[in-house]
């Protein structure tokens, strides 16, 4: 491994870890909203769900709280529940048709940042472990396999991009999309006899994507007073341009995971000959 690569990689990882630590402690020292702790033995599950989630609509929830105030906490059963219609309901809280995505990226976006960082660190560890292993020579591929992998590669890449751009509408999202992109690179590594995967470029792309993720979170912090808050209007549920920040973050996560896993696959095949 080249020294500069390693240094830049560790620098970015360190920056991410420090940022994570800062936000962690910031969350610790915030005052709690209610000010009193419920007794554990008679906690109702309904009390654990936020009003925004019950109403599924930010604007309605604020209006309801402004008029009814504390009465809401005493009488939960009278909260009006809204029906959600695909392609019609506007300005939903998170606006994503896929509930899993809204939980992973919107409610627990911080968690996802941690997961992506863990993946990054594990790929760095893999690179260190693999270093010094000799490359296994594969036989010449036949014409069919060579041409077939060249022919199919752009379409596989397109499919990966489709999965992570439509993460808020269909199942999938950043992680499966990245895995599909990495499988496209795996096909090229298997099918072409002299394909060289450029690990330096992939590491740069990955680091840029990570920085963009944190940057989006910081914009949320400045505009909505909370790290990774959804600061873009959420649009109509079921449309492509909806869900605000969820789609944006999944594009970033897809690019990052794709670059990371491709690097891992390339290291596994070629070994590391620099060090």
């Amino acid at each position: 491994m080249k020294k500069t690569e390693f240094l830049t990689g560790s620098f970015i990882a360190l920056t991410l870890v420090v940022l994570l630590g800062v936000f962690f402690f910031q969350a610790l020292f915030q005052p709690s909203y209610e000010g009193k702790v419920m007794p554990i033995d008679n906690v109702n599950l309904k009390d654990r769900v936020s009003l925004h989630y019950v109403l599924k609509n930010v604007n309605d929830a604020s209006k309801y709280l402004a008029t009814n105030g504390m009465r809401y906490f005493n009488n939960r059963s009278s909260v009006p529940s809204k029906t959600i219609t695909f392609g019609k309901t506007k300005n939903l809280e998170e606006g994503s048709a896929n509930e899993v995505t809204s939980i992973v990226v919107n409610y627990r976006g911080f968690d996802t940042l941690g997961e992506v960082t863990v993946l990054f660190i594990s790929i760095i560890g893999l690179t260190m472990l693999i270093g010094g292993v000799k490359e296994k020579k594969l036989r010449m591929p036949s014409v069919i396999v060579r041409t077939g992998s060249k022919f199919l590669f752009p379409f596989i890449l397109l499919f990966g991009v489709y999965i992570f751009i439509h993460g808020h509408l269909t199942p999938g999202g950043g992680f499966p999309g990245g895995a599909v992109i990495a499988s496209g690179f795996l096909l090229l590594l298997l099918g072409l006899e002299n394909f060289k995967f450029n690990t330096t470029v992939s590491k740069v792309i990955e680091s840029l994507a990570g920085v963009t993720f944190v940057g989006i979170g910081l914009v949320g912090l400045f505009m909505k007073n909370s790290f990774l808050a959804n600061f873009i209007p959420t649009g109509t549920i079921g449309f492509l341009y909806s869900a605000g920040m969820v789609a944006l973050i999944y594009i970033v996560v897809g690019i990052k995971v794709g670059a990371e896993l491709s690097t891992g696959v390339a290291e596994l095949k070629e070994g590391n000959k620099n060090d």
Partner: protein
Amino acid sequence: MNSSNYFSRWFFGFIVLSLLWLAFTFPFSLAELYTGLVVGAFISLFTAKYFEEFGISSFAPSKILGLLIYIPIILWEIIKANIEVAIIVLSPSLPIEPAIITAKTKLKSDIGKMFLANSITLTPGTLTVDIIKDTYFIHCIKIDKTDERYATESIIGKFEKHLRRFVK
């Protein structure tokens, strides 16, 4: 056509990938169209080098017509192949005489060889085992003559003349 320049390959990739994007996201909407154009342009920017034998000239009407004629022919051959295999599988005595024979092709380009090999694999009782230069090694499930000229005419001939309309 092997030396089609970068722009022509990029354009080919752009058109094909954008159309495929619209097929993926079928209920047509303008948002999908814009996204598809951007994604297609971006992906084909750095995968254009893999479209070796394609370019703007691939959109010539004669070539598209050749492809459209080829599709029903290959589908019909696949159905015939399957009926043949079904008869062999269902007969109690398994009437097979397998052999690996050779045949020669006149196609020059890699992509043409790939299409021909895939067609051979999908059609009656034949399976491409390997290609070395222009010699195909074909595993046959049932063959009466192992002569190379006979094999070239009977197995390759029927696809080659249709394939030559759109690949070299």
